């Protein structure tokens, strides 16, 4: 089960994007790669949902963007986490941990 790429849990893509940007600004492709790598290929991000998510997060004021040169000397749009985005990420992380722990508690007796 873990080898096959899985779809994302509804609504978690936004959180993953924010988390990926916590350390440093990145461009779209980089973000997709990072999510795939860190999740060890469990999550594969489809551009059809990635780009709308960028637009959504930008609108909410959690991201801002900037055109910069890449390591390959190409211009790319870099996404940067804003202060508001950082706050949002903290809140979502806490909420996620709470829910995950609760679900784990419910599932525990069975395993």
């Amino acid at each position, binding site marked *: 089960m873990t080898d096959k790429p899985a779809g994302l849990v509804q609504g978690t893509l936004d959180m993953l994007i924010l988390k990926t940007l916590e350390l440093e600004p990145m461009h*779209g492709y980089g973000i997709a*790669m990072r999510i795939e790598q860190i999740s060890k290929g469990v999550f594969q991000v489809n551009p*059809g949902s990635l*780009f*709308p998510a960028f*637009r959504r997060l*930008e609108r909410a004021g959690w991201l801002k963007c900037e055109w910069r040169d890449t390591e390959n000397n190409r211009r790319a*749009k870099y996404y940067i986490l804003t202060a508001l985005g950082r706050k949002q990420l903290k809140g979502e992380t806490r909420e996620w941990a709470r829910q995950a722990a609760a679900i784990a508690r419910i599932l525990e007796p069975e395993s």
Partner: protein
Amino acid sequence: MSLLRNLAGGLRGLFQKEQAERELDEELRGYLEATVEEKMRRGLSREAAERAARIEMGGPESIKEQVRAVSWESLLETLWQDLKFGLRLLRFNPAFAGAAILSLALGIGANTAIFQLLDAIRMRSLPVKNPQELAEVRIADRNGATGSFVTRYPKLTNPQWEQIRGQQQGFSGLFAWGPTTFNISPGGEVHTVQGLWVSGNFYEVLGISPEQGRLLSPPDDLPGCAAPGVVISHAFWQREFGGDTSVLGRKITVEKHPFEVIGVTPAGFYGVEVGRNFEIALPLCVEPVIRSEFSVLNRRDGWWLTVMGRLKPGWTLDRASAQARVISLGIFEATLPAEFDAGDAKHYLGYQLGVFPADTGVSELRSTYENPLWLMLALAALVMLIASANLANLMLARASAREREMCMRMAVGATRGRLIRQLLAESLLLGLAGALLGVQLAHALTRLLVASISTPSAPLFMDMAMDWRIAGFTAGITTLTCVLFGLTPALRATQVSPGAVLKSSGRSVISGPARFGLRRGLVVSQIAMSLMLVVGAILFSRSLQKLARLDAGFTQNGVLEMDLDLTELHLPVERRAEFQRFVLQQVRAIPGVDSAAEAGIVPLSGDGQNRQVLANSAGQVIEGRSEMNEVSPKYFSTWHTPMLAGRDFDDRDSLTSPLVAIVNEAFGRKYLAGANPVGATFRIKSESKGTGPYLIVGLVKDTKIYDLREDFLPTMFLPVAQKAHHEQNETILIRSQGSLFSLISALKSTVQHIDRGIDMDFTPFDRLVEVSLLRDRLMARLSGFFGLLAVVLATVGLYGVIAYMVERRTSEIGIRMALGADSGSIVRLMMQEASVLLGVGLLIGTALSLAAGRAAATMLFGLKPTDFITYVLAVATLSAVAALASLLPARRASRLDPMAALRNE
């Protein structure tokens, strides 16, 4: 905060659209490049890497579309685009757009017009301050009341009103009023205007302030009425005085008495009766002056007033009703008419007062027209549904023509929602245009409807201003129909797989059974609904025909009613009979007058009087009610009413001769066991004076009295010569074959020759008949109009479907013909399809009509809603029209050139 940012971002997006698009393009290109490079690093060739990357990423247009969909401003933008695009498409198809808008406008117009009337009659609040505070005090259940009933709303007597006024607690102000008509001509021919009797505080409680002068106030309505003034309406002021401000202080002659104009009510105030406007108003206390010997002001059995008022703050209808019940017994004890016998008195004392809502005023139109109007609204809604089905069908046809366009757009990334939105924008445009035109149409139609139920003696006045209810109704039906005719085809049109269409080279792929099934279903439902409307139309027109052709017992044409007012002559009671007989003789002598007679009651005029009679039949006394009419000799021959037995009244019958009567067949059946009544006797039960016995000298055929719909009522006719007390007016019926105009002028000069002080009023009897059939005629016309619309729409629908089917099966027809089928068999083939649709539609329609027909039962005369002939006629009409509509395309199919048809593939 985030909303504001979203708004700002959206506005920026709108203005910097091109830059944003460029950036998105660049970003996506970069993403693709990065993917390719990554794959090349893993050892793929550049070409293979590019291919793999493209497949992985999907269509860039589709991604862009999804990104755009995130932001609200794109919605606005695409809506605008859609509207522009829709407008362009409609401009390229003027025939389609015109047909669609016209049928929508007709549907919306008809619905709005009828709703507008319902709104005006039933729902609209009175145009006064805080109408919701208004309530009416009346007897909750007043069955079996006795006495004189004058005015349209004889709810209470004046003594009762005075008691209620003194004892009620729930109202901050209470007033009484009654509608009436006044003759304001100083002499000669009568000039009738709509009038109001009002208590002194009428305007004060309603909160009406004068436009000119002052309005009536409590000091104007004191017993005795020294020098009362008259208040006139704005419309009357404009019409009769040209809006001249010097009107104050001028005199108006009301029923021969001069009254000073003291004020004008503001425009828009029509009283508290919906459907009528008043022209002049007088205080209650003047009533004895105007009605003189017929005054009901102080009569305890004279019913003529309606009592209304404003509830005090904190008083609900229930609380006020409870208080009214408490004071009821005391009030009825104090106002008990002295002449009532024990039975009547017991009944009278059992009455209970109640308080009822009056925010919408009162209206006799409600009982007459409310249900018919709801029924007509239902019929109009059916027409609307048929029009929607028709449009849906047209849209479906267009959708299949555009299916390749749709597929192409989906293939390059348009979402389904986006396409549906675009198709809906087109329907919305049609709907808006239809609604705009429809509202105009509704205005004209409402005026026509009001004019058609208005009569010269009771002109209808309706406040037809647009209100939120009408606007909401129109918007509602427009939206509903847009969704009905727009959404289904839009859903269908976008339900395609792009691959399938792109693969199929030539002909349509979606016109499979499912798609065509929907169109057939629409036509079937159109035919079913049309049948309901046609059945309705035929039912109402047959009902009207039965009423108009009915044997009312008299010949309606060629009779003129002349009403004479002799008040000015001041004849003493004992000379009146002789004078009236003399006038009748003079009238009979006019050349061209075939026959003339005096009548106490004119049939269908709405007037009538009845008495309790006691008859001896086979040794057993029967008591019951009989209508009564006092007539002169030749009354029956003037009406052409056959004398079945015995004799007419003649000069033998006088005040000194034995009392005689002529009765109709219904009287004979009820009181004399159907035997020949000539020679039998009966008595009239009356409170006061001598009452018979009356010897029956003649038997006449049954005639209608109040209404053409009624069953024949037992009626007795008494000779006018034996009447003890003659009034100061005389009604003469004149039969003549000459022209009405010359007859009236001859009558005028004859009467004026007798005495210039006599007032005259003429009414051709046909007009009374017409008035009594107003509602039936309205129903027949409206339902006929709707039926016609329905048939036209359904025919167009059927034609469209058959024509479409012919086109779809062109190659099949070509093959059949190439294989030797003759044109007759092709026509048969096509007609088969049409007759299946027609048959199913008619079957469903018949079932629905039978189920819905009950709603019309009480409005029909002389036939049941399940009338067999009606159904046969309706089915035949619809079948004939439908056959014609499908024969045209079927014949076209049979004339196809087989080679051309095959090459077409």
